[in-house]
């Protein structure tokens, strides 16, 4: 941070060539200053200037990328301590831990589960992102074989965990094109590991016994020229990890501490003896600043709630989330199923569709684009006016799906029913309940 748009603008080529995707250098500078553009989008900035601006405008928690292609995971890039102050940028990467001590069948099953665990919610893809491979057998060839197997069976990013730097470097060399996170440099081996990570241009984890040590080792690695670090303070209890995560983030943001200006790696898998408790700790880390969150298992009942928590916490508080404008069919609908309409604020959609679902009355839910606003706000802003609602109803294709012409509108919008009846002369407008929770009772007594 630090540099204003104008300060950045002074350093740009000022040709207004538009190659960066915005029409002027000034516009580009403004976007850079607010973190909405990447410096690399302008091809004409001299390298020296790039470094200078990059340095000054970089977020206090550096963005570190693990993995490549579609499965590259961005971590860090954070600029605030509380989500309401602006927004959190990059959600944590839930990571499956595999050990070279596990038997092969077990590994195959876990990897498979990892690969097919993908959810979609409001158009956002949610999934566990990384696989951590840990050397525990003491047999370098076993470790190598496992890494090779994982590379073959998933495109996901990797975390390579091996205390034996020699063994780690051999294996890392064979898959450095996947940009794995190397785990880890410590106070004894940081020179070897640092040089090695630099040579392969892979991100490097730093592991210490406590925060002071972490600070020192990180500082030394920065001095060696390393840019992509991931921090492990060594805490293995919920309380200590909580404290360390907060101190690390605060130091980066409030003290501009460079050694702590990186994303973190945390290990709920080493902090609980069952998956339920492990999930609670992982949730704590999701809210309070965990980066790579390593789990002993990926099971739907645990990872799904965790991904929801992560999605909630990392939602941009300034931008209402929206779902697509269309007809949603809930349950086994037919030509005499009820038809309801509401706005496209995602929360409205989730709550209303959930209530319809639990009513067990199959229904059509028309979701009108209200630019992500809730129904009342949308109506006040003219996004749920009778004429626009009518146009949408006509174009939606619902008239081909049902024989009746009864439309249920939200109870809060009773005032538009008269106007809407004028705009939709074939339709009878019914006023639904004000609260979604009353929908099941309403739908059960509704006669079409």
């Amino acid at each position, binding site marked *: 941070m630090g540099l204003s748009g104008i300060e950045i603008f002074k350093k740009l080529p000022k040709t207004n060539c538009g190659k960066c995707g915005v029409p002027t250098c000034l516009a580009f500078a403004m976007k850079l200053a607010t973190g909405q553009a990447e410096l690399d989008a302008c091809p004409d900035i001299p390298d020296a200037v790039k470094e200078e601006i990059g340095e000054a405008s970089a977020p206090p928690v550096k963005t570190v990328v693990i993995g490549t292609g579609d499965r590259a995971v961005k971590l860090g890039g954070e600029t605030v301590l509380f989500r309401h102050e602006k927004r959190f940028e990059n959600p944590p990467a839930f990571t499956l831990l595999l050990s070279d001590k596990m038997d092969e069948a077990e590994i195959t099953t876990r990897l498979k589960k990892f690969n097919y665990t993908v959810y979609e919610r409001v158009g956002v893809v949610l999934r566990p992102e990384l696989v951590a491979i840990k050397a525990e057998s003491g047999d370098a060839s076993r470790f190598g074989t496992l890494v090779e197997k994982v590379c073959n069976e998933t495109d996901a990013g990797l975390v390579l965990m091996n205390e034996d730097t020699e063994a780690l470097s051999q294996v890392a060399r064979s898959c450095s094109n996947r940009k794995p996170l190397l785990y880890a440099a410590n106070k004894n081996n940081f020179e070897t590991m640092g040089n090695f990570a630099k040579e392969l241009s892979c991100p490097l984890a730093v592991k210490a016994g406590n925060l002071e040590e972490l600070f020192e080792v990180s500082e030394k690695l920065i001095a060696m020229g390393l840019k992509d670090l991931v921090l492990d303070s060594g805490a293995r209890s919920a*309380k200590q990890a909580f404290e360390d995560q907060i101190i690390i983030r605060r130091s980066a943001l409030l003290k501009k501490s460079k050694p702590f200006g990186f994303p973190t790696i945390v290990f709920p898998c080493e902090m609980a003896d069952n998956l339920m408790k492990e999930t609670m700790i992982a949730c704590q880390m999701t809210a309070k600043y965990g980066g790579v969150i390593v789990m002993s298992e990926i099971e739907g009942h645990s990872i799904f709630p965790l991904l*929801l928590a992560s999605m909630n916490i990392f939602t941009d508080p300034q931008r209402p989330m929206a779902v697509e404008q269309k007809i949603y069919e809930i349950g086994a609908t037919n030509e005499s199923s009820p038809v309801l309409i509401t706005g496209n604020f995602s929360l409205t959609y989730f709550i209303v569709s959930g209530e319809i679902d639990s009513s067990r009355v199959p229904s059509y839910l028309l979701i009108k684009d209200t630019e992500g606003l809730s129904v009342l706000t949308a109506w006040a802003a003219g996004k749920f006016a009778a004429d626009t609602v009518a146009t949408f109803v006509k174009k939606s294709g619902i008239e081909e799906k049902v024989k009746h012409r009864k439309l249920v509108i939200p109870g809060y919008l009773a005032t538009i029913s008269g106007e809407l009846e004028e705009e939709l002369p074939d339709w009878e407008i019914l006023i639904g309940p004000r609260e979604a929770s009353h929908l099941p009772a309403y739908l059960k007594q509704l006669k079409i």
Partner: protein
Amino acid sequence: MAFEVPKVSYTGKIREIPLGREGSTVTVGGESCYSFHLFEGEMPYTPKIAMEVYDSEPEDWSDTALEPFADVIKDPVAWARKCIDTYGAEMIALQLASTDPNDKDISADEAAKITKKVADAVEVPLIVWGCANVEKDTEVLKAVCEVCEGKNLIIGPVVEGNYRAIGAAAIAYKHTVVASTPIDINLAKQLNILLGNLNVPDEKIIIDPSTGALGYGLEYCYSVMERIRMAALVQEDERLQFPIISNLAKEVWKTKEVKVTEAEAPLLGDLGKRGILMEALTAQCVLLAGANILVMRHPEAISLVKQSIKDLMTGK
């Protein structure tokens, strides 16, 4: 450059509020730091969990939620006792759901009778929660205040539309009020000011900034709680220095995700454990954001949250 722990200097403190009747009160609040930031402040009273009891048999509960209470589901008194005797509940939250005009619409008198029975049967603090219909709650909660005089119940939701009537009854019969507002820090503050003007004592106010379930708007509640705590602790906003309650169980247990079976949605995993974690994770998030009292349902979710509170407080 040496490393130095950047500490926040807190200038405010959350009020300590004793709940329940004399001789067996449970105190909440008293924090001089953000939740669990024990390296720079104190949390003299750990957050508490109130177990839900319903005034009549719930109709739409999932098997997961129903199972632990199957033997007491028709009897609020037995239900409350089971929560205390079997599950060690620190508080009870009686949900007067059947007072809802869109539901069974039981009368204020009947609701008051049920409440009195439960209140007489439990020694722990009792939260009594209406159906969130402004007019009906006014009637019901006034009646409840009267028949339970002196028991220092925690009465809610008290909203802008009925705070005068319920507030006056709470003052007269010595109860604590839950000031409820829809996810908005300014409205929360405003209602607390109004309650103060009405002469509701400061040690009789709890804030309810509204709760959404995990995946259903939790983020809004999370942030409004964090903002309330920030205002209270570092911006010396006196009218926000009250403990926070989160009535979360009923939000979580009505979502689709706690009801869909594993056969219908294999990716969502075990139905029972998933429901428990949906509740426990919602609780975990609001705890970190600043909640002091959590209204919860499933005994296993509660035990996970208790463990988590203990871990964060004591470091094991």
